[in-house]
């Protein structure tokens, strides 16, 4: 095997590794989203069973430089005429490993994944720059605020 073939093979291996790395990052990101929504569905289970809320899955098309075009999951929570949409903003955001925008007629708030401050999901207020853990309590309090 001459030097140029060796160099070429090494290039292909590096490229393959790089691609696999991004595939892995994308899979982990989509898993994190799925896990988030399943938690939210669990927290809202009683309200859904009582017929007060409706939760629908949706798919969002995203394009990121590192990951290329891909489909990411989102959900829409409906209460009467009001909708709360969970829409992934992207895996590659500054200061965190992903962002989901929560859109309603009250505006947009964000959830950050593994931010530099909080591991797991956190609620982020872009106005005050405050972050707090996104758990059942903060989730239900947020929904109460958005659906009022």
């Amino acid at each position: 095997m001459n030097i140029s073939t060796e160099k070429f093979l090494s290039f292909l291996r590096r490229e393959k590794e790089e691609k696999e790395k991004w595939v892995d990052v994308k899979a982990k990101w989509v898993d994190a989203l799925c896990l988030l929504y399943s938690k939210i569905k669990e927290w809202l289970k009683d309200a859904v069973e009582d017929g007060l809320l409706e939760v629908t899955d949706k798919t969002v098309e995203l394009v990121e430089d590192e990951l290329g075009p891909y489909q990411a999951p989102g959900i829409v929570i409906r209460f009467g005429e009001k909708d709360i949409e969970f829409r992934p903003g992207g895996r590659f955001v500054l200061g965190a490993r992903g962002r989901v925008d929560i859109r309603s007629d009250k505006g947009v708030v964000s959830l950050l994944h593994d931010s530099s401050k909080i591991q797991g999901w956190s609620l982020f207020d872009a106005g005050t720059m405050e972050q707090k853990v996104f758990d059942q309590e903060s989730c239900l309090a947020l929904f109460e605020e958005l659906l009022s």
Partner: protein
Amino acid sequence: MSELDDILHKYRVFRDSQAIVRECIAQESDLLTGTVFFSRTKKESTQALKKLGETIELLAVLDIVAYFESKLSQYIEDTIRPYEKAMLPPSGFARKLYQYIQDNAEKWRFDDKLELFKEEIDQHILSEAKKLYKFRNWIAHGQRTQKPSNYTPEEAKEAVEKFLQAFPLISVSNTNDPLV
């Protein structure tokens, strides 16, 4: 450094800062923690930065034209002033007439003010100044109509400088009597 250089310098300070922030975004720098870029994607951040850059560029042009307007208006006012004393008879009438001209001179359309220099200024320079003013109006009136010829801050400065250099008396308008 002239006042125009100063305006352009501020704009360049912004542009360099913009380039530094753009690089911080590209490198996902920790310096961005606690800033408006935190939690934004690189694309969102660079777009926001680009949009701000466009706004700042327009504001710099407004600033340059505001300087031009003030220089020209001041020159016109200074030109009118000596006529108050020269008016015959030197009475309340002359004072009121002068006051009337002075008050109304402020309300003259800037295009009309530019026209006053028509015989002294090269037509191309005058036309550039008018086009620049049209662009200034487009910015100031909400950019709702069709965009006229665009001027970067550098081009705006050049157009204003050419006009002022072609009519050097304006640059000494801080003296009270431009006729001297």
